[in-house]
């Protein structure tokens, strides 16, 4: 079932999941960043961006492909026991790949519009639903700071109800694990590896500063597609 969800997500279009087929087996590859590692300074240091992209995200991709290979072999043999065992690895690594692919698009250097508040329908929806951008930012920062351990804080849209939601997920669970109709607009990684080298244990400072490089254009495009 996890696999079906993941294949469905491929059709969310242009998420840059780096999908290609080889011998009939789907494999994924690390998407390139649309900006330099140092382009998000001083909000996020180049060192963190490089490690985050080249080491952490790459590890998720590698392990995801490995798990998919093992899944392929197990399903071919009809080995349900192994399939069941692989589900958590698929969820973790697949989720990690999906989440980080969205994350890179959620960020943009200041000179490319990072930090610029959303115009159009998303901006309007935020004001309508939360009252103001400040309230939304405050809510996301509070929930992100309060999250115990590792996880993500999301701004999403319920594509059935057409409402905006703020949600947190733990570890690498994708937003869809909190509701089948939820589509992520904006995700902020609050795993310690996302900020520790620069902000140490002061996660609230990281959350405060990351808004300076948030790419609202991308979020707005996704929103327009789900709520035309």
């Amino acid at each position, binding site marked *: 079932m996890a696999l079906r969800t993941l294949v469905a997500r491929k059709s969310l279009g242009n998420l840059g999941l780096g999908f290609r087929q080889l011998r009939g087996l789907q494999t994924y590859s690390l998407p390139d960043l649309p900006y330099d590692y140092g382009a998000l300074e001083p909000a996020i240091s180049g060192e963190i961006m490089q490690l985050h992209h080249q080491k952490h995200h790459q590890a998720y991709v590698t392990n995801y492909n490995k798990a998919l290979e093992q899944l392929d072999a197990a399903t071919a043999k009809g080995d349900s026991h192994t399939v069941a065992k692989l589900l958590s690895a698929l969820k973790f690594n697949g989720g990690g790949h999906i989440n980080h692919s969205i994350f890179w698009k959620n960020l943009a250097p200041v000179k490319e519009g990072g930090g610029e508040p959303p115009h159009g329908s998303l901006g309007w929806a935020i004001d309508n639903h939360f009252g103001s951008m400040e309230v939304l930012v405050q809510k996301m920062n509070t929930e992100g700071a309060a999250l115990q351990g*590792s996880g993500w804080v999301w701004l999403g849209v319920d594509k059935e109800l057409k409402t905006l939601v703020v949600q947190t997920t733990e570890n690498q669970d994708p937003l869809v694990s909190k509701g089948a109709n939820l589509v992520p607009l904006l995700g902020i990684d609050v795993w310690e590896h996302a900020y*520790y080298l620069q902000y140490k244990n002061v996660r609230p400072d990281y959350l405060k500063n990351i808004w300076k490089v948030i790419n609202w254009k991308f979020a707005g495009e996704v929103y327009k597609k789900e709520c035309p």
Partner: protein
Amino acid sequence: IMMETSWSCCTNLGPSGSSLLVTSDMSKLFQKPNFAQLCQQKKKELQGPRRSARIHAYYGLKSPPYKLDALEPYMSQRTLEMHWGKHHRSYVENLNKQLEKNDMLYGYTMDELIKVTYNNGNPLPEFNNAAQVWNHDFFWESMQPGGGNMPIFGLLQQIEKDFGSFTNFREKFIEASLTLFGSGWVWLVLRRNEKRLAILKTSNAINPLISADIPIISLDMWEHAYYLDYKNDKGKYANVFMDHLVSWNAATVRMARAQAFVNLGEPKIPVA
């Protein structure tokens, strides 16, 4: 090594003289500077409202049994300063803040507090802080300068009995640390029911006290524990822990204590 890190500073605020007496007495008994600081701090706070009698239950930040640079180069002083000085300290402070507001949790020992706030899987907000305070105390004491190597005598025998060989145990322990998803801890525990040693992975703040297993050593796999020294290289961190940091002395003491609760069978005493 007793895990009792709690003490209660009960202060019935009568004449200021009595509260002063309590503070200076305690400063003499406990040489640790941070505890004296804590008492000083509390003394200043208490000197405010003198008439009302307030009961406070406090936990204190216990220092590791070595200086902060003693684990170099395997765990840097910088890491200890952050991990103990900031993370561990904030768990203690936040716990104290929560306990101030919650009378019902007054009077428990740390172990009991953890089990009560775990609330059978539906944890209360205090659980996270309480468990993490305990976890970190246990972790610092699971390491020592000049650690690593191998256990000896009974503990080694038990490991060989339950894992086949020490090498196999070490491999399994490191594998556990690499396959833990997200934040958490890796433990060597003595299982009460199965009467054997086992390796346990727990998430976030959860620890074996919940399942009434007896922990023997632990390894912190939260990213803040290794990121400054090893970045994302969990494998190197876990190997260094096994080779240079783990305190088999502490483990032996804990194992000896554990055997008072778990009957591992009669020792083989040779006849003649």
